[in-house]
């Protein structure tokens, strides 16, 4: 195409050739979504290279146009305006002109871009958000939960009848099998791995000390904490999050019922009651696992194992296990509830809250285990 020509053709596709005469481009046929990609690309290229500064798009022979077609002609106009090329539109039947009027993008305000934030501001905002939203939010929830846990202890009317037992079954009883099995396996492996070293020093019988102390003060509570955090922490978060997105929590509030008292407190009571028992079961299962390994690899009979156990077991181990179970129970329920109450964005939010609750609850259990381990050392 040459600028000095007064009449020539622009080929867009095999079956789409437009006449350009005295700066007027006669659009023909249809200009719909299927065609606009090639149309806009080729048209911008051709008109840019022509050297002309003014064009008229004539729609008299255009049969049909859709919203994408209308957007495309304005898009071409906008793109070429940046090169100093002006395009004017003219003609077209009533349907075409009405469509152009309806779908003309420039009549709509272009949305303002979200404000750009620099790196320091971003870091500052994130730190501030973390403390104000997570730390402060968690502590506020903890304060509320502990206050109501004490205040409602003798006021069963504040919760659904039988809810504590129901939650005890869900959180505690239903976890028994997995906790016992995993503890047995870990006790077995722990003793098995240690047996080789102990045999080298002829200290076979110390397998009992190792297994009992490790299981009662450390591994039993930790295994229980991690498994309950994974199992019940997620279900607490999912339950509360679902209640929030389906407005059940709002309904409770507008009925004059505090969601923390009604939903969270029974779970806390149930966890505080059942976790010590789970820790005891985990410890016993782990010790049985250790005894199994001791019998098969170190020839320590169950009688010897039990007799030695009596010398090793101290009240301190029992108290350590109990205190840990109580701390874990609080952490699991608080974390699950915290993420449940924070949920936004419907079903997707429920999934995110559940995942976050599990990860954070397990992490907190491990951190608490380390701190308590040092305190009770």
């Amino acid at each position, binding site marked *: 195409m040459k600028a000095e020509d007064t009449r020539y053709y622009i080929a867009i596709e095999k079956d789409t050739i437009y006449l350009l005469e005295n700066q007027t481009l006669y659009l023909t046929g249809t200009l*719909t*979504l299927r065609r*606009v*990609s090639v149309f*806009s*690309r080729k048209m911008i290229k051709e008109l840019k290279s022509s050297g002309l500064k003014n064009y008229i798009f004539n729609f008299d022979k255009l049969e049909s146009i*859709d*919203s*994408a077609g*209308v*957007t*495309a002609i*304005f*898009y071409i106009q*906008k*793109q070429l305006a940046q090169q100093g090329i002006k395009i004017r539109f003219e003609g077209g039947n009533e*349907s075409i002109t*009405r*469509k152009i009027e*309806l*779908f*003309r*993008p420039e*009549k*709509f*305000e*272009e*949305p*303002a*871009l*979200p404000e750009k934030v620099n790196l320091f501001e971003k870091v500052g905002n994130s730190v501030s958000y973390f403390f104000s939203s997570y730390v402060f939010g968690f502590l506020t929830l903890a304060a509320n939960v502990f206050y109501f846990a004490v205040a409602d202890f003798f006021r069963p009317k504040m919760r659904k009848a039988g809810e504590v037992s129901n939650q005890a079954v869900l959180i505690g009883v239903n976890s028994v099998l997995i906790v016992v099995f995993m503890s047995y396996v870990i006790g077995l492996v722990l003793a098995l791995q240690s047996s080789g070293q102990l045999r080298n020093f002829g200290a076979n019988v110390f397998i009992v000390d190792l297994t009992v102390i490790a299981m009662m003060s450390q591994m039993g509570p930790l295994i229980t904490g991690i498994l309950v955090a994974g199992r019940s922490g997620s279900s607490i978060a999912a339950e509360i999050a679902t209640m929030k997105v389906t407005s059940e929590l709002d309904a409770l509030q507008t009925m004059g019922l505090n969601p923390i008292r009604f939903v969270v407190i029974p779970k806390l009571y149930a966890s505080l009651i059942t976790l010590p028992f789970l820790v005891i079961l985990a410890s016993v299962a782990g010790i049985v696992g250790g005894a199994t390994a001791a019998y098969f690899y170190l020839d320590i009979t169950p009688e010897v194992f039990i007799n030695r156990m009596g010398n090793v077991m101290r009240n301190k181990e029992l108290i350590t296990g109990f205190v840990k179970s109580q701390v874990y129970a609080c952490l699991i329920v608080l974390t699950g509830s915290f993420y449940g109450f924070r949920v*936004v*964005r*419907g*079903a*997707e*939010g429920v999934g995110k809250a559940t995942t976050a609750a599990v990860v954070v609850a397990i992490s907190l259990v491990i951190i608490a285990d380390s701190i308590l381990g040092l305190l009770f050392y």
Partner: protein
Amino acid sequence: MTRNKVIEVENLGASFGDTRVLNDVSFSAYQGEVTIILGSSGCGKSTVLKHLLGLYPIMQGTVKILGQNVAELTEKEQLELYLKMGVFYQNGALLNSMTVGENVALPLVQHTHLPDHLINDIVYMKLGLVNLENAFYKYPSELSGGMLKRAALARAIALDPPVLFCDEPGAGLDPISLESLDRLIINLKELLGMSIIMVTHEVSSILRIANRIIYLSKGNVLFEGTLKEALASTEEEVHQFFSVIDDADKVKQK
């Protein structure tokens, strides 16, 4: 003049377990018309819609959309048909992980080869049509119920589909937003020749936009005809449905 049928439903039947939901539903919808599917709650409207959309397998009867028998389509043909259908879900059904702009752009990005800037312009325009230009960078969770619906409509018409299915688009909208939504639907119908199949209970909206009424009752088509015929219908249930207009007139006269 023969009108083109965009949808033909013949003897459609459906059951969920032992519960019979649709008995023998037959009706047609025509090109460039707004066809309203009406009926009391539980009459099978949503079930009919889901059969039309290919979301439920057709166990009895035939459903033809744009001349194609839905039950006999291959996966590829079904996909091609979906590109000719826009669907507006009652709750919006926007993808929460994407901004409103990305939601509307999704079909354009996936099914066309348009440059990004042009896609953005089309999205601005579509959002502008539903008065939501400023929601481009917002997430669905940041929108109100009415705004969600309008954004969902923008997405449904992203590809200028010849057939648009709407499931209760007016529910929860204020009368002013509803009126502007109706105006947009009329424009889509008149300018783009779009055929619109709509499930709605908004009588004011029906009076403004409907060409054809399909009234379902207990899994059967109780009435099929033009809006004018529906208003003059002697079928008790249909008459009762539209009697709200008389009630409004009585209130005005008081």
